[in-house]
């Protein structure tokens, strides 16, 4: 049986991080009451004229520079005409002829090594409103209508759902690093249309493709791709033909479904937008933006390994989400304990993050409080278990550890006089364990250490206790 090749291309729509819409001064704030951020421009009232948001153009160009695109120094806007109730002027302002960014790419790691997935172009446009479906009617909220939306069109360079995930993950990371989008999937900041086709190995020409529209979770995209590949292979292997069509992913049923398409629905009659003058980008200005670009995720990982001497694995985990890397670097500079801090972050802090479903910027833990905690352990003021007990309060309530230690009297007991008396008490009360140890059962020492810890109410320095017990046994000839 012949093998089949899979070809996937993605069109990814990303909300920019501007305060206002693309062509009017309405706020882009998410989660406001329906239809409270609307005006004559975004409602398409007759006579209302769009005025371009300069910051949106800058952010789109910065995204392009981060992704290695060529910047079009002369760029224009076009009208895409269609009738649908999410866009009341009956056209979307977008870019067809002269988009802002051309080319570029995203590097992904695959089992065969790292590879560049090419970007065809990035254009700037406006988002549509949101339609809400009810039992007997539909409603429209135009708050989102006009939000600056950047569309990143990849070349059909991907050949599996895993590669598509790697592309989206790295693309999202770069855009967040660029500071041009939150890329918050729950808020619909990043949505993708997927083009997919299959063809027998050896056939040059791509197979007939299906497009799956408007998916906003990576999990959904992965599942939809898996399903669609399966569906197309089944048809092709039976000798059937794929229909070129648009499909919808139904997450509940776990299947893609054909969408009703009106004849001629894709004739958008593009023409130049007469209400907007072209954008010319001065070479010098673009070079200034390029010089001020933030670090790319890969560069940051490399620098963190060099600067803090942490393993590559740690740098990868920490730099995966920019806010985590930012947090780590501030805390690192405060406490100087790089690897210890990294361990704390990757285990205890990340565990709290995943349990609470919060991000590092949403929780109450600050770089200062974590650095302080690590320093308290390092200086021997508190022991590790005490620090672990304190962490949730730092995380949930924003408390500062040094103050907690002082107020609650949690400082570690490393006064050898006090420990000595605890130890003697334990040795008297546990003659059997002492005898066991002397008879060669070295594990009994651990039990005795535990008893001393208990007497000190957890505040003894376990290392010191271990040492003192060992010395006492040595003195007894053990």
């Amino acid at each position, binding site marked *: 049986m012949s093998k089949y090749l899979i070809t996937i291309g993605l069109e990814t729509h990303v909300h920019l991080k501007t*305060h206002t819409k693309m062509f009017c001064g*309405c706020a882009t704030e998410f989660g406001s009451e329906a239809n409270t951020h609307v*005006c004559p421009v975004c*409602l398409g009232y007759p006579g209302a004229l769009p005025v371009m948001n300069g910051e949106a153009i800058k952010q789109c160009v910065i995204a392009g520079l981060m992704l290695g695109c060529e910047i079009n120094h002369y760029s224009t806007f076009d009208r895409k005409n269609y009738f649908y109730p999410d866009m009341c002027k009956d056209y979307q302002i977008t870019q067809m002829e002269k988009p802002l960014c051309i080319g570029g790419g995203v590097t992904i790691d695959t089992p065969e090594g790292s590879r560049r997935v090419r970007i065809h172009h990035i254009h700037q446009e406006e988002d549509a409103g949101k339609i809400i479906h009810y039992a007997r009617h539909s*409603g429209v909220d135009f708050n989102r209508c006009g939000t600056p939306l950047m569309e990143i069109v990849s070349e059909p360079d991907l050949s599996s759902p895993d590669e598509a995930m790697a592309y989206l993950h790295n693309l999202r990371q770069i855009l967040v690093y660029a500071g041009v989008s939150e890329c918050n999937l729950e808020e619909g900041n990043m949505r993708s249309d997927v083009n997919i086709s299959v063809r027998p190995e050896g056939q040059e020409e791509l197979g007939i493709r299906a497009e799956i529209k408007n998916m906003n979770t990576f999990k959904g995209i992965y599942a939809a791709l898996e399903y669609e590949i399966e569906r197309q292979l089944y048809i092709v292997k039976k000798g059937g033909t794929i229909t070129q069509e648009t499909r919808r992913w139904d997450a509940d049923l776990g299947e893609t479904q054909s969408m*009703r398409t009106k004849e001629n629905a894709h004739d958008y009659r593009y023409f130049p937008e007469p209400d907007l003058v072209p954008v010319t980008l001065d070479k010098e200005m673009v070079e200034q933006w390029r010089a001020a670009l933030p670090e790319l995720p890969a560069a940051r990982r490399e620098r963190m390994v060099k600067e803090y001497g942490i393993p590559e694995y740690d740098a990868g985990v920490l730099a995966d989400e920019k806010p985590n890397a930012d947090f780590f670097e501030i805390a690192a500079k405060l406490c100087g304990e790089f690897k210890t801090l990294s361990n704390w972050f990757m285990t205890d802090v990340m565990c709290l993050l995943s349990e609470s479903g919060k991000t590092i910027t949403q929780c109450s833990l600050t770089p200062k409080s974590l650095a302080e905690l690590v320093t308290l352990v390092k200086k021997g003021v508190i022991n590790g278990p005490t620090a672990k007990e304190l962490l949730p309060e730092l995380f949930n309530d924003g408390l500062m550890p040094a103050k907690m230690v002082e107020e609650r009297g949690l400082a570690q007991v490393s006064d050898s006089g006090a420990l000595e008396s605890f130890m003697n008490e334990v040795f008297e009360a546990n003659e059997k364990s002492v005898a066991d140890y002397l008879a060669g059962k070295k594990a009994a020492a651990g039990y005795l250490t535990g008893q001393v810890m208990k007497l000190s109410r957890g505040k003894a320095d376990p290392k010191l206790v271990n040492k003192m017990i060992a010395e006492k046994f040595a003195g007894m000839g053990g």
Partner: protein
Amino acid sequence: MSQSIDVAYVSELARIALTDDETKLFQGQLETIVDYVEKINGLDLDNIKPTMHGQVSTNFFRDDVVSPSLDREAVLDNAPARTDSEFKLPKIVEDA
């Protein structure tokens, strides 16, 4: 019929309902206009850049500063049908 324009098709795309007589009338008129503009193609245009805009000016930008939006009551009162907070539509089936 000239190949330059198909008024029946264009009017359907633009959601303009034309009678057969109107379609015939506009077909003739628009053919004349389109054919007239097509004369430009008879010229040597190799070194002429397409005109994207009638204005010679470029870069007309707005600062990214929030300005007041309209009052929701006034906006929704303008709609043919409304609920407390949304524009109301007949139930729609998702199109591609």
